[in-house]
């Protein structure tokens, strides 16, 4: 048995494992050093965790879109980050109009619903058009082709919106009713943060419900399992895929509004980095898996928020928060090497990862 085991391990495996262990060791060392330093109080850690959860909620929502599309088409929709951007960027203008009409702060719930509806509508439309124009004709093409198309579509959409709305920042008005924070003893959570976390949770539950318990969700799951057989069973594959994109787009639009509630600025480039982080989150949780995307998002958000302080500060690295994206990417690499199916797992991982 030892001999077959030795035969299966290659040199590259050894090197990769060595690097992995080295990084893990440094992380543990850094953590211990930081905790020993005692620079941060438990209240600070809690603050960081809550911030991470809020950020993670947004990653989770965007990740839902990635995971739905990947589950059904086995393809990363690179342009999803622009689907995410289109909704809130457009809705910002509506919000401005509502402010001018005086409705914004007088009827905050109504305003929020309107803005959410518009963002979801715009994002879904973009997602739908994307699928119809760019992805559908390439469904049978070799792997690389739709991937490149997605990258091209991503840049095209980014710069189209830049051309349309300008390259500057578009401020998103804040809601009076969401100012300030709630406190439980020493724990402070901003009202906006709470809204984001709860909103992400709600959206996740809705989508999970759709995928698991509705007829349409069943169609989605069967198409993702085996397209040809699903077609034989009488499922309209094209329509299912279109609606999947619409759902993913809608969740991205909602994510976008939550995002601008938390960080009230929209601009054409805003989707790019959150998109990559969200993809990392989707992979982390298990691609194709709805609760997985949610969990992955939260974990990534927390690690990004807490990580630099926890791992890097203790090692004496100056300006640790400059390296927080590095932490996110290293997490991605780790997961893809050591557990490609993600935390909650997903059947097709090994063959497709």
């Amino acid at each position: 048995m030892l001999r077959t085991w030795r035969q299966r391990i290659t040199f590259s495996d050894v090197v990769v494992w060595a690097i992995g262990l080295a990084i893990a060791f440094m992380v543990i060392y850094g953590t211990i050093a930081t905790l020993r330093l005692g620079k941060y109080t438990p209240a600070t850690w809690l603050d960081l965790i809550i911030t991470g959860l809020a950020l993670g909620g947004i990653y989770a929502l965007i990740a839902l879109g990635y995971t739905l599309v990947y589950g059904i088409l086995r393809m990363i929709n690179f342009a999803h980050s622009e689907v995410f951007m289109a909704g809130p960027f457009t809705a910002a203008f509506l919000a401005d109009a509502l402010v001018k009409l005086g409705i914004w702060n007088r009827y905050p719930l109504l305003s929020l619903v309107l803005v959410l509806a518009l963002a979801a509508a715009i994002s879904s439309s973009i997602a739908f058009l994307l699928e119809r124009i760019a992805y559908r004709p390439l469904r049978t093409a070799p792997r690389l082709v739709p991937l490149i198309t997605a990258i091209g579509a991503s840049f095209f959409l980014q710069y189209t919106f830049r051309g349309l709305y300008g390259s500057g920042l578009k401020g998103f008005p804040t809601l009076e009713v969401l100012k300030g924070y709630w406190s439980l003893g020493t724990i402070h959570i901003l009202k906006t943060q709470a809204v984001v976390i709860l909103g992400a949770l709600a959206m996740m539950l809705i989508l999970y419900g759709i995928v698991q318990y509705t007829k349409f969700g069943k169609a989605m799951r069967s198409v993702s399992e085996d397209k040809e057989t699903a077609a034989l069973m009488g499922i309209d594959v094209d329509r299912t895929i279109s609606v999947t994109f619409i759902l993913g787009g809608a969740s991205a639009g909602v994510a976008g509004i939550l995002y601008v509630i938390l960080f009230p600025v929209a601009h054409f480039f805003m989707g790019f980095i959150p998109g990559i982080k969200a993809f990392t989150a989707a992979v982390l949780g298990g691609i194709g898996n709805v609760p997985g995307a949610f969990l992955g998002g939260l974990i990534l958000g927390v690690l990004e928020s807490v990580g630099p302080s926890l791992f890097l500060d203790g090692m004496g690295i100056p300006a640790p928060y400059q390296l927080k994206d590095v932490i996110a990417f290293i997490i991605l690499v780790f997961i893809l090497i050591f557990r490609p199916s993600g935390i909650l797992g997903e059947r097709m991982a090994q063959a497709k990862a």
Partner: protein
Amino acid sequence: MSTNTSALWKQAIRTGLIGGAIVVLLALVGVIGTFKERDIISGWISMGHVLFLAPILLIAYSAARHVESHSKLVILLVGAISGLMSALVTAILPLFGQVVNLRAMFANASPDLYKILTFGQGIPLGVIILLLVGFLIGGLGASLLLLPLRARKVLSQAVVWVILAGLLRELIVVVISRWGVMAYIFRWMFAQNGLAPVGAIAIFVIIGALTFWQSGKKRPAPRDLPPHQKRKRTLVTLGGAGIILIILPLVLGVYFSEILDTVGLYILMGLGLNIVVGFAGLLDLGYVAFFAIGAYTVGILTSPELGLFHLTYWQALPFAVMVAVLAGVVLGLPVLKMRGDYLAIVTLGFGEIIRILALSDWLKPWLGGSQGIQQIAHPWIGGLELRNQTQLYYLILVGIAIAGFIAWRLKDSRLGRSWMAVREDEDVAQAMGINLVATKLLAFATGAFFAGLSGTIFATKLTAAYPHSFSLFVSINALCLIIIGGMGSIPGVVVGSLVLMGSPELLREFAEYRYLVYGALLVVMMLMKPEGLWPEARRRLELHEENELVPHEEPQPVLNNPGQLGG
């Protein structure tokens, strides 16, 4: 018959709507407004107008294509209706803009834009003119279908050349002005902005005549020539190209040497990425990492600023390249088991990691942080310091020659075949006995080698290395140019680099919409011509399996058709 006609009109209307939507999009994004300043025919037609009317024409043409089998009148009408619809949709913009202040939302919905769209006549006269113009242009577009193929070719070539001449006016004028007295032969063709009408007509006639004459002759296709004639032809072409390449910067001056240098550096990088993506099928979005590593290594080793080392450029070069290759292996190891999409994102992550590390305060003592590394040494040859763009051009040319030669030999070597097998299907390749690990790592290493080389030349040209130079956009540029040029095709890299890297330098307006165009081009190319502009023969076969004469049940992998291996 009646159902048929209603279907026809529906078709015309639908395509017209799409055309109109395209024009409105172009208008709102700002392309039409920006290009308005650049006249093609001075005082008459600007590029903005071309971009405004061309979609209408082309959409009408494609609408007419659908009804090709019908009578001439029907074809013309369909085209005209389509054009009318496009104009109608376009007219909505200025009409709406009168009532609502669109500018609050759409930065480009300015009165100037409306002026362009209504031909300066305002509402309502301008709208009527717009509709009329749409109708006519639509009909014109459809009428192209009625012309014989040869006439169509002549017309389209002539028009394209006139537009190109108008766009590249500055470039041409600068080159011509160096000819002194003889410049007057061509000078009258150009006005202050764009072509003079006389010049436009002249170019139209000349190119039209040339195309006419060309298309009449029957010439043997290159691959049908006997081998020794083929070889002679190749040698003559290469020799001629070589001579021109050598004298090019001397003739064109420093202005263009700068552009050639940039294009050249990207060709060098493209050759490397072409191996990784084109040969081996590994989509690397973090290619800039190796570029950065080459540049920074030369910086660290030669700059007196950091005080760590003080080598010359030539001494630092092998180290820099070796470090880049090592990085290629190190960054390749973790991604060996990943495919397609995951590989792309992870490599993108690596590229960003390298950039962030170069920028970081943490590594500032060694990498310079946000200030970068300055005072990087120039290369010395004998007593001559290679410092300006013209001199460095030759260095880049040598680099490209070496890289091109290596890439060309590798393509047909055993390693190259292994790469292509891996690109096709990894599992089958492994089953055939190919060592996946070694093959993939060699691909990364070779790609990193070229990128590192390019990086060292970049650093010495700039005499500085700043982290801001090594952003994701460099990787995206390299990726776009090899894909649009032709994946896996070496001449394709040159074409892609010339077109994609040269155009923003030559056309300032284009530079503003650069990535929009890149994105659109990628999507359009993948949809219509995924093998690129100058394809590699094998690739073209792979991607157009359906066009083969022998019908298959479903697309078969290339390995099953041994007779098609033509390289």
